[in-house]
C-alpha cells in the first residue's frame, strides 16, 4: 500500500513538533552567544528560515546544528554592547550572583557557549559538539578557560 504524500497540514504539524523539541536548544545556544535579545532574534530567524525551507531541509541529518549556523549567520550583523548581553534590569527576583551577567558577557563567545550549555544546562561535551559542529576536546578547552575566567572575574576561587 502506498501512503499518500504528506499534506501541508502534515508539514506544519511536523514543523511545530520540531520547534517544540529543538527550539529550546537553539534558543539557549544562540542566547549564550549573542545575549538574550539578539539570541532570541537569531533563534526566531533561524526557525523562520526552517519553516520557509522545511521540505528542502528534510535531507539535513543534523538540522538543529544546521539551524544553529543559520542563526549565527543572521546574528553577525548585530553588535549589541557586551555589557547588555545578559541585561536583567534594575531589580528582579533572582538568587544568582548579581555580577554573573556581566562576568558571563566578558567571556569569549566560545567560552560562554561551553560554560552555559555544559554547566548551565548539563549538556554533555558530545551534545555541544553535535550542536556546534566542533570537537568535544575543543569544547572542553573553552569550558576550562571560561570557568577559570569566570572565577577570576567574580573574585572567587576553588579554595574559598
Amino acid at each position: 500500500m502506498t501512503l499518500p504524500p504528506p499534506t501541508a497540514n502534515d508539514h506544519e504539524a511536523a514543523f511545530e513538533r520540531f520547534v517544540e523539541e529543538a527550539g529550546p536548544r537553539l534558543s539557549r545556544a544562540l542566547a549564550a552567544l549573542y545575549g538574550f535579545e539578539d539570541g532570541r532574534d537569531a533563534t526566531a530567524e533561524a526557525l523562520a528560515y526552517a519553516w520557509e525551507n522545511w521540505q528542502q531541509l528534510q535531507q539535513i541529518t543534523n538540522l538543529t546544528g544546521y539551524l544553529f549556523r543559520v542563526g549565527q549567520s543572521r546574528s553577525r550583523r548585530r553588535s549589541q554592547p557586551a555589557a547588555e548581553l545578559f541585561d536583567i534590569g534594575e531589580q528582579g527576583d533572582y538568587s544568582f550572583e548579581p555580577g554573573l551577567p556581566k562576568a558571563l558577557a566578558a567571556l569569549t563567545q566560545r567560552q560562554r557557549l561551553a560554560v552555559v550549555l555544559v554547566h548551565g544546562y548539563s549538556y554533555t561535551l558530545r551534545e555541544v559538539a553535535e550542536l556546534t559542529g566542533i570537537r568535544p576536546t575543543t569544547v572542553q578547552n573553552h569550558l576550562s578557560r571560561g570557568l577559570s575566567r569566570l572565577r577570576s572575574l567574580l573574585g572567587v576561587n576553588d579554595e574559598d
Partner: protein
Amino acid sequence: MKTELTEQIHELMEYGLRPVTMSDIRSLAPVTATGLPRPATRSQQLGDRWLRPRRAIVAAVAATTALASIAILFGVTYEGGASQPVIDKGAVQLLAKVANVAARQPAPRVRDGQYMYVETRAAVTARRPVPWTGTQAHPFPRHSHLKMITERIWVPVANSCGSAWTPVGEKCRRIGWLNDPTYRLLQTLPTNPHALLATIERVERGHGPSLAQEAFVTIGDLLRNTIAPPKVAAALYRAAALIPGITLVRHAKDAIGRSGIAVARLGPGADGGVREELIFSRSTLRLIGEGSVIARTGEVTGATAIIRRAFVDHRGQVPPAGQRSSA
C-alpha cells in the same frame, strides 16, 4: 545566593530567556537564501573557528574513559613564571629545529577520495561538580578531575561537501577553510611564515581576548588535527616563532605521560593565566601532544597525545599501529 555555579548560570539563563513561539516565527518576513552561511572565500574567513561546521571532523568520536592516567597528568611539573618575555631565544631555536625536521619529510601522495586519520588521547576535565558542604560561598566546581578519552577523526582530503553541514541550495566550499581544513586547503596555505601568520591573524582577529594567543592556539590546532604538507607544517612552526610571548618549557609531558620539550604561550585567565603548550619529542623533534596548565598552580586542565596520523582510503578505516604522518 545559590552556591553552585551550574545552578546560577541556569537560573540566569532561564530568567532572561523568552521562548520563541510559532507566532514569532510566522510574523517574520521570509528569510531568503542569503541568510544562509555562505561558503567563504579565503578573504571572507572571518567566523569563529570553533563555531564553524566541522562536518567530517564531527565524525566518530570513540570515547573511552580511563581515570588511571590522571595521576600522570598531575605529576607533571612546569617551568617558568607568569611573565612573558617578548622573545625567548630557546623557544625560537627549538621551533626552527622542529620546522627543519618537518620540512625534510617527504610529501605524501594523496588521492582526493582519501581521508586524514587522526587519533589522539586527550585528558579532559570531568564535568561533575564537587559537592559543596562548607559554610562559605563556593559556587564553582573544581576542575581537578580529568578523564581520558580517545578521539578518532577522519577528515576528507579534498571534499568537505555532502555532509549534514552542507548548506542547502548553496555551493559548498569543497576544500574547507582555515579552521576546518581539508588537505587540499592546507596545500594552498602560504609557506612564507610571515604571510601564513598574517593569514591566521586575519581569520582570528576579533575572537578571543588576545590575537597572539588565538594565533598560537590555531597553529596548534592545525598541527594536531591534520596532516599538514611538509612545507606548510614547517611554515606553521616558523610562524609560531614569530608570535610574541612564546617561551620554552624544558620538561613537559603529554596526555599519556610521554616526556618532551615544549613551546608555550601564556593566555589570559585566573591564577596567572593558562599556558598552552606544544610538546615535542626530544629525540625526533616531532609534535607529540599539547598541554594546558594554570600558570600559578601548575594544575593541568587538559592535555592531548597524538597517537596516530595517516591517510586512509575510507572513513572508519584505522591504519596499522606505528604508521606515522609527515607532519
